[in-house]
């Protein structure tokens, strides 16, 4: 194991920012009061929770009373789906996409076995949605349309504000899983038709264990976790104060760093991608123009992702793969398969996801090791040997 750690798996989770951790610490010790208490000791904590709520609202262009703190992005997604069904008992149809995160995808598949109908929208080879198909999928009894803002594997960005407008025109609620998009894509909820939006703290440098659900004023809502009156009766359970404070601080940082994500981080990502594409039989997955600035899904054909990851790990490089072997399932990534990425490439896909903490030296470290790793694995791949032979047999091919 190399001493050096190059962390490029930020779509999986991010480092909690030192500023965030510092902001949280007093709330584990000194300020332990319950925000709901009548005394000042608790009340002062309640005021800090409100500050955090304001910080999140500002990042999203929302009002503080539209922000509900939850335990994670998955809880926010589940809450949105279940609330839409519970608040409109006559409506039993949901529209979503084939490339959602499991938080939405598996929940919808579960609902489909319980008497609800779900339409899973297709994507094209670039990972883009067909807006007309989305509009046509909406029916009289559609309770909710749920479409992710940006894909966690490829970074492809969906035209979420436009889809929300289509839904609003038809009087249908719209939810978006914006876990990967927040902090990287400008979001202005006040000026949008989005009914609900989920985000996750640990994807933007807050710690794990905190999420947010935005609920637009006037959206019918039934709580998912029932009990006390916390969060204005929308999410019961004593507030997780230190993490809420951390979430607020992370939101404030994300707002100030949005430019950096789209300039510095994007430049690093592009430098990495350009370098990797010099390797033979390599391709980028997803629409290169409509993508998150930090994400790169690269397929190295004829090799399997797990082997690549283990060799990278030995050099201290952290990335992830859409291959079957790494996930414990037997099928490669549902996202890449939905896009029609061929098996030769889907099994050998590696996702690099950067953050503001990455440097040019990190990128160069990867570019130094990657060609050798791929070459080693290809040398033992029967398909690579066949691919090479086929190329040699091509008329006009000159032996190098």
């Amino acid at each position, binding site marked *: 194991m190399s001493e050096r750690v190059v962390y490029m798996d930020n779509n999986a989770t991010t480092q909690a920012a030192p500023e965030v951790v510092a902001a949280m610490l007093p709330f584990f010790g000194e300020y332990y009061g319950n925000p709901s208490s009548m005394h000042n000791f608790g009340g002062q904590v309640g005021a800090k929770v409100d500050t955090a709520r304001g910080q999140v609202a500002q990042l999203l262009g929302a009002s503080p009373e539209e922000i509900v703190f939850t335990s994670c992005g998955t809880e926010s997604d589940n809450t949105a789906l279940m609330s839409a069904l519970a608040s409109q008992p006559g409506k039993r149809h949901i529209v979503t996409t084939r490339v959602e995160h499991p938080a939405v995808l598996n929940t919808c598949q579960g*609902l489909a076995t319980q008497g609800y109908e779900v339409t899973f929208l297709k994507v094209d080879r670039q990972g883009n949605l067909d807006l007309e198909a989305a509009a046509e999928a909406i029916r009289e009894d559609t309770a909710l349309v749920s479409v992710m803002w940006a894909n966690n594997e490829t970074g492809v960005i969906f035209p979420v504000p436009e889809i929300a407008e289509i839904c609003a025109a038809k009087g249908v609620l719209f939810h978006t899983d914006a876990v990967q998009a927040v902090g990287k894509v400008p979001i202005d909820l006040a000026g949008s038709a989005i009914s609900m939006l989920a985000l996750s703290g640990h994807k933007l440098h807050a710690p794990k264990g905190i999420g947010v659900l935005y609920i637009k004023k006037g959206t019918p809502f039934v709580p998912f976790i029932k009990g006390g009156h916390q969060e204005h009766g929308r999410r019961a359970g004593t507030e997780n104060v230190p993490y809420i404070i951390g979430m607020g601080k992370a939101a404030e940082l994300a707002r100030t760093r949005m430019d950096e994500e789209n300039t510095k981080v994007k430049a690093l990502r592009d430098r990495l991608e350009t370098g990797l594409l010099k390797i033979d039989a390599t391709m980028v997955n997803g629409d290169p123009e409509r993508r998150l600035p930090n994400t790169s899904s690269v397929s190295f054909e004829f090799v*399997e992702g797990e082997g690549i990851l283990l060799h990278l790990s030995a050099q201290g490089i952290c990335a992830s793969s859409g291959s079957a072997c790494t996930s414990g399932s037997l099928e490669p990534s549902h996202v890449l398969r939905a896009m029609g990425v061929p098996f030769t490439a889907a099994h050998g896909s590696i996702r690099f996801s950067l953050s503001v903490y990455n440097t040019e030296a990190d990128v160069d470290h990867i570019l130094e090791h990657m060609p050798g790793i791929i070459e080693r694995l290809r040398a*033992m791949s029967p398909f690579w040997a066949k691919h090479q032979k086929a190329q040699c047999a091509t008329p006009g091919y000159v032996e190098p």
Partner: protein
Amino acid sequence: MWEYTDKVKKYFTEPVNVGEILDADGVGEVGSLACGDALKLTFKLDEQGKIADAKFQTFGCASAIASSSALTEMVKGMTLDEAEKLTNKDIADFLGGLPKEKMHCSVMGEEALQAAIRNYKGLEPLPSEEGEVVCQCFGVTDKEIEKVALNNDLHSVEEITNFTKAGGGCGECQDKIQAILDRLWDTAPKQPVEVKPPAAKKKKLTNIQKMKLIEETLEREVRPALKADGGDIELIDIDSDKVLVSLRGRCSSCAASQATLGQFVQSKLREFVSEDLVVEEVKP
């Protein structure tokens, strides 16, 4: 992250016998790109008919590469008769074990070796062409499933998936795999096994018995769970196999109540009373 043994890690990071013997006596190719792993095994015999050299080319994860490399080490010096007896279990044991989800990598090794020996003997390359394809996603036949189940004492569909991948794609063939296992372990000669009676065949009940059993099951299995959520259930009528119930309290206004009924009440009644029961909700 998978828990690999040191031996698996060693054979993955420093694989031996990588490549292809060009004038091989036996060539075995199994797996495919779509499946996510594939292995091409070549061997050369010496004058005594023992395997003098073996090489591999593998597309697959770390444990597939390690299993292939280990296999080439293991077969060197073996006669073909000895090599024919080598099983996936031997490969996994040689490596100090594999994660259960990765056992199919050792099966791929065994299959490639068998294919290479058949190739040497001038037989059809793929013994898997015998039998009927059960799993369309990964092209696994009933014969292969039976063989792996017998060799490794596998009794569940999940185990079969771990060893052969069958049933791990769309999942549609899982019932067929279960049927193969049922058939196999009912008739398997050496296995002194407990044969479970098929769950569906319950004793025929009289109407009175059925009614009583339904009431008991609702009381014991269903009502406490609903009450915990502030709801309740009332048995309205039983019409042959149709059980009419009414939900009270919080359940009745909940959008998920239909799901509660379908999934929960019906499954409990089917489990404890009869497979044929259908639950319907009556509005109070």
